């Protein structure tokens, strides 16, 4: 093969580098810059205002609580669903297609759909009323019912975003040769042992990808929460939105954005470390 000029690989990746720099790096630097500039110099004033805000502690707590409840549930659900889907002989593609429909729906639309189900005059109340379980329109999403509101948001998030974990795990499961499970079975492993001793460890790289993706997205949760609870359930991204649009204070909004990014990076670092697969343990 004739030697190619050495600049060709660089020229080929240049468009994506320019794209990323223009639309990702520049805004990132600007956001960080915005968050640390107040008045006429560098200061942490924006971060002070953010931390001193009435809703800040609540938003941090809610965001973490939601992430800690939603992400593990999604992984467990997706593992179960993926195991079942891969066992299907017929109609596997159809089932997978149906299960992934929520991925095609925008998160705001998903939030609104669940609002239609759960609001005072929604389908849930109509059904409960018809069954005689409630006397009239009952609020589930108000400030007075924080637990119900929390579970409504968890439910909507599970419905909306479990499929992305499912897709990643199914791809991962298909990479594991079936001989491993067969060998384990021959040597006496029961189904649960096969799952914990063979499938899960071999699925670790996929689990890591799925967890990083879902956790980062969970820390950014906004539209579903906003549609169902408004500011009754403050979360970090929602607070950034409020400071940006309602308070017109871009500096504090930027501080929130930087905080979310820092949390996401920290979570990613933890996953990369805890779920790392040593090269010699790769198949």
């Amino acid at each position, binding site marked *: 093969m004739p030697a190619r000029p050495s600049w060709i690989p660089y020229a080929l990746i240049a468009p994506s580098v320019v794209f990323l720099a223009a639309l990702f790096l520049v805004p990132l630097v600007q956001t960080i810059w915005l968050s640390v500039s107040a008045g006429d110099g560098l200061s942490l004033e924006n971060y002070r205002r953010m931390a001193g805000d009435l809703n800040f502690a609540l938003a941090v707590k809610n965001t973490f609580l939601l992430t800690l409840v939603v992400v593990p549930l999604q992984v467990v659900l997706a593992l179960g669903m993926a195991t079942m889907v891969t066992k299907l002989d017929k109609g596997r593609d159809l089932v997978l297609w149906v299960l992934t429909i929520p991925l095609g729906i925008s998160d705001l639309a998903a939030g609104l759909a669940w609002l239609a189900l759960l609001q005072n005059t929604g389908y849930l109340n109509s059904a409960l009323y018809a069954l005689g379980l409630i006397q009239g329109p009952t609020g589930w999403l108000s400030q007075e019912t924080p637990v119900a509101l929390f579970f409504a948001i968890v439910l909507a998030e599970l419905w909306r975003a479990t499929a992305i974990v499912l897709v990643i795990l199914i791809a991962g499961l298909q990479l594991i040769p079936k*001989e491993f499970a067969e*060998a*384990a*079975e*021959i*040597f*006496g492993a029961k189904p649960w042992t096969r799952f914990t001793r063979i499938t899960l460890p*071999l699925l670790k790289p996929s689990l890591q990808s799925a967890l990083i993706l879902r956790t980062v997205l969970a820390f950014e949760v906004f539209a579903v929460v906003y549609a169902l609870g408004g500011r009754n359930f403050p979360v970090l991204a929602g607070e950034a939105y409020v400071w940006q649009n309602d308070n017109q204070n871009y500096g504090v909004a930027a501080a929130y954005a930087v905080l979310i990014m820092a949390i996401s990076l920290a979570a990613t670092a933890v996953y990369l470390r805890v779920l790392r697969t040593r090269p010699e343990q790769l198949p």
Partner: protein
Amino acid sequence: MADIVIDRVVKEFGSFRALQEVSLTVNDGEFVALLGPSGCGKTTLLRIIAGLETQTSGRVVIGGQDVSHLSPRKRGLAMVFQNYAVFPHMTVFENVAFGLRMQKAAAADVKRKVERAAALLHIESYLDRYPAKLSGGQRQRVAVARALAVEPAVLLMDEPLSNLDALLRLEMRTELKAVLREAGTTTIYVTHDQTEAMGLADRIAVMYGGKIDQIGSPLEIYATPATRFVGGFIGSPPMNFIKVRCSQGTARIGDAALPCPVTAESLELGLRGEDASLSADGSGLPFDVRVVEPMGSHLLLTGAIDGQLARIVAPPTAEVTAGERVGLTVDPARVTWIDSTTGRALARA
């Protein structure tokens, strides 16, 4: 220790019949090879014995117990897979120990048995390593050690040497034979390689088209093939088949005459290349030599007998040139007569 009885096992995949009423008995401690070309059903049969596939009908009995509908882990067997299936996320020690751990063996017991199996397969020095750091041959040893560590009554092997290079395969074959002889395990070994089957097995079951064509010792299978397929599949070069006319108990080819059974309309003479020798005076079966290939240990002669392709093995020093017609002496006791219509060998006279 246990014997295995396979009783009229049928396996259908949709409308395709992969196994047609296969029956086979493997005695306690015996080593039986299932030999056949790809697609003959040998691996399917092995997987049915293991319980990894379910037979459409028929029974599998191991050690007197009908295991036809038991899950693999309840059948008391071990298996070595074609691509080893050594667990990549466990050390060699944990791989070999896997079956013992599943039996909840005591730690000291596990250690003792793992070390014994490791010593048998010469992998003691890799016990702390992960399989990715091992060569193909070493992984193969781990897979065999894992199977032997549980001291199984029955050992199933699915083309265990086919992923190794030729030299290593020869070495492992010899070693396997010694190790398994010592262990005394009842073994079923699937292979498409006749030299492996001949070298390792006490008996060989030759499979073709979802059936067992012949079961017998390596020598029996070689010397007295039961079908045209077995004769052609076993031996290198394969058996020659020459169509002949048999009248009144005698088949004439050129000026040679061989006694033949008269029961069949159309007959084929099955002749092994090494069972014919060059006659000193050119008499006997006329053989037109077309190509002479010196193989070192022998000369491989390719040519025609009565216009039909044949390969003959001659001593390395024989003076034969291409284009020549030579005469072959054939011992009538060492030929096989095949009924062309059924492809089955006829009873020897």
